[in-house]
């Protein structure tokens, strides 16, 4: 099978960073904070984070923070829990978590927890288990997980557990690999993985692998490289990753590369984007592909970054 064209992916990401005038850049400007996380984490995993100007990134991130503590997707955008996590994750990559007022960010997130334990995305009140993961992950990175009601948060997540062992966005919502990653990740960080039926969920997850070796997100849907992350990290967290064929998945991810121009797409021969490039590389990291640094499946950050946060002085 072909190889990972790591250098081309690095060049692709750097070119996207620079091309502020491209169509993709212009219509995605409101979620640049997510884009920064996808691009920079990929660079880190490929050992090329030093090609980026730390100070420029950090000062741009801080200019996206609002008084209430939350971060917007870009300068001049309203705060939202989605971009707050990405901001904290990017700062963690650069070992610059000390530049933020952790209590301020914490207060913003604490304020988003609802009576039933769920989390809203922002003041407009949308509820989704994605936000439960974000709250728990973010506060854990800031060493302030105890500031929310963790029991209620866990209870809410479990209320979204379905009879197939999977999880949806809200109670009764269809099991979906993306939501499963969020719920399992949240439970892992909160120390409550014992509440997951690992055998049942593990089987549901390994049934996501289709003949081509790729993974889909729900039964009878097409495979997509991003599920290489969501399904895979979930399997690793519940200790069942050996239930899929790693070799076939690696081949699928590598087939999704644009080996001429760099970047990875959702499935072979489609257009590439930063989102799928990150998930493809992160998936390969979980599969221990040579030349890619290890990534933590729960925090979705390089292991060395997570270790630095939790195990240094």
């Amino acid at each position, binding site marked *: 099978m072909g190889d990972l064209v790591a250098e081309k992916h690095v060049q692709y990401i750097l070119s996207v960073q*620079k091309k*502020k*005038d491209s*169509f*993709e850049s*212009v*219509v*995605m*400007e*409101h*979620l*640049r904070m997510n884009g920064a996380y996808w691009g920079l984490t990929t660079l880190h995993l490929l050992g090329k984070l030093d090609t980026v100007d730390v100070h*420029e990134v950090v000062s*741009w991130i801080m*200019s996206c923070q609002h008084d209430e503590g939350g971060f*917007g*997707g*870009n*300068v*001049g*955008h*309203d705060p*939202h829990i989605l971009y707050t996590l990405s901001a904290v994750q990017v700062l963690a990559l650069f070992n610059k978590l000390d530049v933020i007022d952790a209590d301020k960010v914490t207060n913003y997130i604490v304020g988003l927890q609802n009576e039933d334990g769920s989390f809203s995305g922002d003041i*407009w*009140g*949308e509820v989704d288990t994605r936000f439960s993961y974000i709250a728990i992950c973010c506060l854990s990175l800031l060493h302030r997980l105890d500031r929310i009601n963790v029991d209620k948060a866990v209870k809410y997540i479990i209320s979204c557990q*379905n*009879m*197939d062992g999977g999880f*949806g*966005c*809200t109670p*009764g*919502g*269809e*099991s*979906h690999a993306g939501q499963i990653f969020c719920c399992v990740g949240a439970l892992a960080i909160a120390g409550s993985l014992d509440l997951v039926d690992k055998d049942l969920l*593990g*089987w549901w997850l*390994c*049934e996501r*692998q289709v*003949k081509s*070796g790729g993974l889909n997100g*729900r*039964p*009878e*849907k097409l495979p997509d490289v991003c599920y290489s992350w969501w399904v895979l990290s979930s399997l690793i967290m519940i200790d069942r990753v*050996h*239930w*899929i*064929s790693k070799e*076939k998945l690696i081949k699928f991810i590598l087939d999704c590369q644009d080996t001429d121009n760099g970047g990875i797409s959702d499935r072979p021969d489609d257009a590439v*984007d930063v989102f799928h490039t990150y998930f493809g590389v992160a998936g390969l990291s979980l599969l221990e592909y040579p030349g890619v640094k290890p990534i933590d499946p729960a925090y979705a950050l390089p292991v060395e970054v997570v270790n630095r946060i939790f195990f240094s002085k």
Partner: protein
Amino acid sequence: MAGKIEDESNDRVPLRLRPEWSDVTPIPQNNGPNPVVPINYSEEFSEVMDYFRAVYFANELSSRALSLTAEAISLNAGNYTVWHFRRSLLESLKVDLHVEREFVERVASGNSKNYQIWHHRRWVAEKLGLEARNSELEFTKKILSIDAKHYHAWSHRQWVLQTLGGWEDELNYCSELLAEDIFNNSAWNQRYFVITRSPFLGGIKAMRESEVLYTIEAIISYPENESSWRYLRGLYKDEATLYVNDTQVSSVCLKILRTKSNYLFVLSTLLDLICLGYQPNEDFRDAIEALRTSDNEEQDSDIARTICSILEQVDPIRVNYWVWRKSRLPQAA
């Protein structure tokens, strides 16, 4: 992913030439020193967003600002800040939300895979209350007729049912969708949602009998349908003994085994049943024996082990899972 591209109509008047906007100074995006290279779309987009920033930072809650958010949304429906500001405008200007609902419908027709639209739709429906019920059910139905597995649409529909009601026809609706595509996992999920939560149906116990019949019929038509098997198992959630003792379940397994095709899920179901205490009879042994393809396969008096061996062969991508299942079987006496 991208916003809907407006017709490249030459009759669009740039904002800088519109008299009603002459008092406003547009604010360019603060995104670093790189100059924006103008291409048609990019120029119109940048202009609209520059004027948006002007009214947004000034917190101008006016009807021209409201129109501007509509323009911005039509160019990029993913920009959540524009939607937020639009909601503030709708509240402040006390706009008729029935009209707003139509606006969302138009935007959704080009952009349905977008969290902002669905969240906005829900916000509008919440404000309209019970009278919004039918329109919301119709709206989701429309989206589902284009994409029957649309995650946001299903999520919204579940919210509508729980908040505004309308359960009465939902099981029928699920049946309709399944008649169109029996493999639609979302429709099966919705079916489960309805039988467990509808205030009119009496819960899973009351519905079990009819639902088992329905599901078995679906399984017979397409035994390779993962969703139907999971649904069947779900009907017996927390009732393992009933599941094991239901002769309909074991007999549909035998029936399909004898066809010698599409038997993957039959085998895994049989394996589960045996692990729960089911004791397969001679008919099962014969049917499974007939499936063993290789002479090299170990002859095993333990039917469960034989099933695992067959699965290792016919579902090789998940061989490690089946090997693990085999290792978990109680040792033969």
